[in-house]
């Protein structure tokens, strides 16, 4: 297995290198120095700024240096926009991001799998059709509409109704104080639960359709018929035989969406003012703070590649038929 992992890592190294190359080249198409200093800047000022930002060196040097720093996990390059190092900008944004994405991912997977099971078990009946119609209709509305309506009804309308503020309209507060667990959960819920719920609602349409399809495909296969023929109860067939076999596509789905979810909540983070990775990334692009952009994108790519390899290893753990070679 280890030789497999090593081989996959080696195979993915060029992919990673090209991602960073494309990104760095894209970001340098327009001169970031001129854009930062404005039109009235003198030539000397531009040259000085260029030197300060390290853009006067050849592109290949910048590329190699970034890779070298990244390989050593050295994030001490200075941000162009703030008086901080890249690490100081990026790392504090990890916890806020995770406090939305992890619960959202877990919750939406659970809810969607349950709904997918219900729909698949009643395949062709009214419940199934109603659920799938709901999923299709839900998919036809923009993410932004859910966010706007979620904020209106979850934060404004609900507070007006109950007289107290249940969910914050926007903002974030560090909730990771382990001395008072109850307080921590309450703070988390105040700022993060509403975005989590919105995210669950949005992804539910896609996920339930997918999980239903997976389960239906399994339900029509031979081993299920055999299990029924030998007299297994419906519940045993569903959970013991079916769900276990459906685990592979389900794990794939969750693992593949994992890195996307990190930034997938970009809209939520910007809208609700949560200082997570998505918002940091967006701000760094808009403010032309390219060291930060490069660091976040390189991290994401590394996480994605790692999670892909991990998925394959997980297959082998879940399904004894899969051999990694």
């Amino acid at each position, binding site marked *: 297995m280890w030789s497999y992992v090593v081989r996959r890592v080696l195979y993915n190294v060029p992919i990673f290198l090209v991602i960073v190359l494309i990104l760095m080249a894209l970001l340098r198409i327009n001169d970031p120095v001129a854009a930062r200093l404005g039109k009235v800047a003198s030539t000397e000022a531009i040259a000085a700024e260029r030197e300060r930002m390290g853009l006067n060196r050849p592109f290949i040097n910048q590329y190699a240096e970034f890779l070298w720093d990244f390989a050593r996990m050295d994030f001490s390059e200075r941000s162009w926009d703030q008086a901080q190092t890249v690490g100081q900008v990026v790392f504090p944004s990890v916890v806020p991001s995770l406090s939305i994405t992890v619960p959202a991912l877990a919750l939406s997977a659970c809810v969607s799998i349950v709904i997918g099971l219900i729909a698949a078990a009643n395949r062709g009946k009214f419940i199934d059709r109603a659920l799938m119609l709901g*999923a299709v209709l839900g998919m036809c509305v923009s*993410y932004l509409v859910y966010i706007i309506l979620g904020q209106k009804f979850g934060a404004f309308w609900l507070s007006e109704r109950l007289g107290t503020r249940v969910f914050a309209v926007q903002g974030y507060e560090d909730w990771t104080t382990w001395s008072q667990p109850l307080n921590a959960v309450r703070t988390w819920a105040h700022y993060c639960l509403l975005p989590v719920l919105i995210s669950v609602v949005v992804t539910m349409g896609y996920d339930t*359709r997918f999980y239903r399809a997976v389960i239906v495909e399994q339900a029509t296969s031979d081993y299920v018929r055999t299990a029924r023929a030998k007299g297994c109860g419906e519940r045993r067939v569903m959970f013991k035989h079916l769900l276990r076999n459906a685990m592979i596509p389900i794990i794939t789905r969750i693992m593949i969406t994992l890195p*996307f979810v990190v930034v997938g909540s970009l*809209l939520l983070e910007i809208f609700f003012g949560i200082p997570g990775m998505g918002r940091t990334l*967006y701000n760094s692009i808009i403010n032309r703070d390219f060291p930060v952009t490069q660091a976040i994108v390189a991290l994401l790519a590394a996480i994605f590649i790692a999670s892909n390899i991990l998925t394959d290893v997980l297959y082998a753990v879940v399904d004894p038929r899969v051999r990694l070679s």
Partner: protein
Amino acid sequence: MSDRPGQNAQPTDLLTARAGQRPSGFFEQPGVRKFVRNRPAVGALTVIAVFLLLALLISMPGVNLVPLERATERVGPDVVPGFFVRASDEKRAAFAAFWVRELDKALRASDPERALAALAFAERRIVPLGPDVLRDRLAEAQAMLDGLDEAMGDAEDARFDLEDLAEELAGEDEPSDALREHERELREELAGMERVVRERLVALEDAIESLYPTPRGREGFAYRVRLLAGTDGQGRSLLLRAVYSIKVAVQIGVVTALLSVFVGTLLGAAAGYIGGPVDHAVVWLYSTISSIPYIVWLVVVAFVVREINWTVPILDKQLNQTLFPVYAAFVMNFWVGPCRVIRGEALKIRGLDYVQAATAVGCGRWRVLLRHVLPNTTYLVFINFSLLFVGAIKGEVILSFLGLGVQGQPSWGIMIRDSQPEVVVGFFWQLGIATAFMFVLVLAFNIVSDALQDAFDPKHVAGEA
């Protein structure tokens, strides 16, 4: 859905094929027949056709169904509700105040005659009277407005008093008769005040009607159409904006979906059929793109392309005033989907008998690719086209929210973005109309792509992308 055994008396296509009558025409193909039998899909296709036609009519220079100026001009007060729903008294007072203010502004201008001549909101114009007459009428209307404000203030105060009293009453177990009597009196007083407010409001609205007579006949109809869905925060017609946005959405959808499907199909088919180093290169290329969340590329590419200082030759516009940044961002992401699927299909087809037969007969590589491999991936091309069309429409909303989307013209994304502060104060018309238009088009495409998958891919279960 309706292929119960015994119901179709016609022989199945396999049988006709064996009898020597190969399904020849487009409509005789089994997949096409199955698709045409699917009623919702045909309905959805019609809806798409209507949207495309509207987009064409809007963008054709000769017809110009909804010119851009129509979608960006002021037609009345801000945030008027749609479908002529009666607004609250406060809002009606605000609408009246708007008309009065506009007249005031015109009369204060350095050249009142000219300002009055220009004082028109689409078809609704000021009465053609001299500035002196209008000055008197304005003074009257302003007095009425002041009176209305005063009455509304009084009613508001009375309402607060009543609320306080109700609290007091609720606090006591046995409220005294005097207190009850007082409450009854206050209630009557409030009712009287509200009557005054209503009367003054109606009188003011009549005065405004005589100042700005509602157009009649054809013009009146046109004006009512403009106000059908209400107005946005800058008094622009929501209906016309939403209809104009059809053009923008179709433009973005068609261009990005066509380009992405073209690039994806070409690379995918080449990779799958030719194999070897070409395959490796293509797989490697799309792996790099898909290793980064879609939205990151979207934001980076849209931002970078917008910043390029280049005037587009034919349109004679700066690059950031066109839709090119949006196209670039979408195509960069979207070609991966069709490429991956069609590569898989081409790999499968490569091993099939008829391809080997074609090779054996002496067909060249390109001939096999173009005549035998690509035609058999057509249904995938169509499915991917409609999936990407939906992706582009939805992505446009996200880009517009981030300020990287459409510039200088309305779009559903811009409408949804602009609706956010309105929704907070309870005005849902802008959000509703933009979402409704988008919903219909996206739903139609979703139904069509599902039906295509059902019709052409026998193993497919709805929902598996």
